[in-house]
């Protein structure tokens, strides 16, 4: 074997090893890297079997602190929409954190637990204990403008609590943590049809023939006014308004 042939064999072998191994490394992180630049895009999910209520996903680009002042969200606190390019570490924050930061935490699969200014001390202590127990999952911060004492948020999901309910908070955290990380990470397993995408205007399927109680439940889960949901003969489901 000549020196030139041997050299080419070494080159091809080395390049192949590097390409395969480095390529594998990059592919595994590709979604995180690209999403870190652009923000994330994913279809809506209703998933009525999950805790809380689905909230339609807004376009969610990464924007500057100046640009976020003009952002409009579809819930308070928001569960998707324009947010900062950097994230915040999970943990307990004694002061309010900007929506743009909380949203990025949700985009990474974290649960953001907001509490109103007037929350009782025992409830706050209980929330802090839970934040310590789920220290890799929860961002706990005050949100002074809340109308309910405690609001749990995950990406495109919200639950409002009138007081601390350990079971409800724990369920929300356990079922929704890591469900989204720059995209849906797993199926919701809510049964046939329950995971279908929300359309705009939102349409909730599989309720043909439902009684008034079902329609009321659907309205509550989606944060719509009770009575605004009715059967939709055209689509054999039910729709809002």
């Amino acid at each position, binding site marked *: 074997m000549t020196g030139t042939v041997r050299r080419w064999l070494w080159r091809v072998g080395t390049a192949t090893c590097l390409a395969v191994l*480095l390529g594998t490394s990059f592919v595994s*992180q590709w979604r995180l890297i690209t999403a870190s630049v652009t923000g994330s895009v994913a279809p809506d999910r209703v998933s009525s079997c999950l805790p809380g209520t689905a909230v339609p996903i807004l376009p969610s680009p990464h924007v500057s602190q100046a640009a976020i002042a003009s952002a409009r969200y579809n819930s308070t606190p928001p569960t998707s929409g324009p947010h900062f390019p950097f994230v915040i570490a999970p943990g307990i924050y004694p002061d309010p954190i900007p929506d743009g*930061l909380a949203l990025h935490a949700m985009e990474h699969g974290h649960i953001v637990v907001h509490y109103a200014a007037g929350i009782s001390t025992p409830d706050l202590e209980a929330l802090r204990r839970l934040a310590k127990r789920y220290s890799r999952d929860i961002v706990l911060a005050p949100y002074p403008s809340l109308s309910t004492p405690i609001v749990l948020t995950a990406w495109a999901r919200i639950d409002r609590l009138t007081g601390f309910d350990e079971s409800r908070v724990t369920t929300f955290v356990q079922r929704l943590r890591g469900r989204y990380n720059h995209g849906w990470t797993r199926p919701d397993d809510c049964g046939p049809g329950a995971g279908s995408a929300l359309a705009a205007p939102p349409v909730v399927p599989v309720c043909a023939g439902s009684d008034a109680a079902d329609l009321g439940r659907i309205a509550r889960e989606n944060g719509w006014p009770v009575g605004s949901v009715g059967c939709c003969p055209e689509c054999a489901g039910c729709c809002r308004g």
Partner: protein
Amino acid sequence: MPVDTTGSPLHTAVARLVVGRDGGDYVVGRPDLGLYVVVPEPGAVLITALQAGAGLSVATARASEVAGEEVDGVDFITGLGAAGLFETVATSGNPASTGRPVRWIEAVNPRVARLLFGRIAWLGYGLAAAVVIAVFVLRPELRPTFEDVWFLPDPAAALLFFVPIGAFLTALHEMWHWLAGRALGVAAVFRVSRRGVFLVFETDLTQIVTTPRRQRYAAYVAGVCIDCVGLALVLTTRLAYRQELIDLPPVLDRVLGVVVLAQVTSICWQVTAVCLRNDGYAVLANALGCHNLYRATWLTTKDRLFGLRDAETEELAQISDHDRRVARWFGITYLASVLGMVWLALSFAVPSLIGLAMWTWRSLTSAAVSSAPFWESAALLALLAAQAFGPALLARRERLARRGGRLL
């Protein structure tokens, strides 16, 4: 200082020198002065011959044999004198008497330093490593992620706050190398330098070549040992906080989180970055009995892939057969090393840096010049630029100083 190149004065002066191999060259130095010069092999042969009691003419003859041509021993000794290696010092244990600045580490008595590397100390280091592994296995939520960098809502404040923390941790790592060297009885030099494109603190343990190989491991792994101790303490504190055994301000818990991230990154770096002559490289090269494995491996790999220039071929030929034999397969560890560093970068550095870059870019292009985000971004950009270009500037300064004879 002129030196008497005859008889007893010369032997007295030469006896103070240490000679150590450093790659293809040799380092001749005065530990008490913290002064070292690089000399070719014939120079090292000449000095060791003088230290063995040979006269200057005999030592010169031996050096000439190695060089393959006549060398001028008197001129060489005069050069060493001009470099300051024969400066008179009262004793090596009292560097203050030279009028040079006292390096505080030189004041650490080896007996004191040995306490940090005795049997009990090693037991402590082992225990710390076990605690770290146990916590990471049993409590995954305490493993670090790149998000830990953003431990404050303001990214600029988080990064600026982390700079001194990172510097302290790095300095502590290097200080333990330093103390380990001191425990061995060798002097060490602490300096700011670069490794690749990274600004680093380094401990010069050149003199360690004068100690038996099996004793050198302590100095090579000392930095990782103290990293493990720090990590174990921080993890234990965070665990106790989560178990409601102690109370901490939440922000302190997050600061400890970024310390965990920094220490884990540091340890992983020392394990993976073998191709950049890190601590792991030193351990491997020592275990394999090599003197210049780093250059031998690069040159062997380059020869296989692209061929060598004449000077490089000559350099490789001068490296020992043993090192060249090891270098034939050691390139595999370099490949693994590159992959390890890529994994490290993708897992911890790249996601944070992309977020930071996007924020900086958007703030600088869309925020008003009078706004705080604009100036925060500008400050961060300056910090990142300093971290990126600082090492290059340092390297250039060192190169110019070396050419100008101000750095040996």
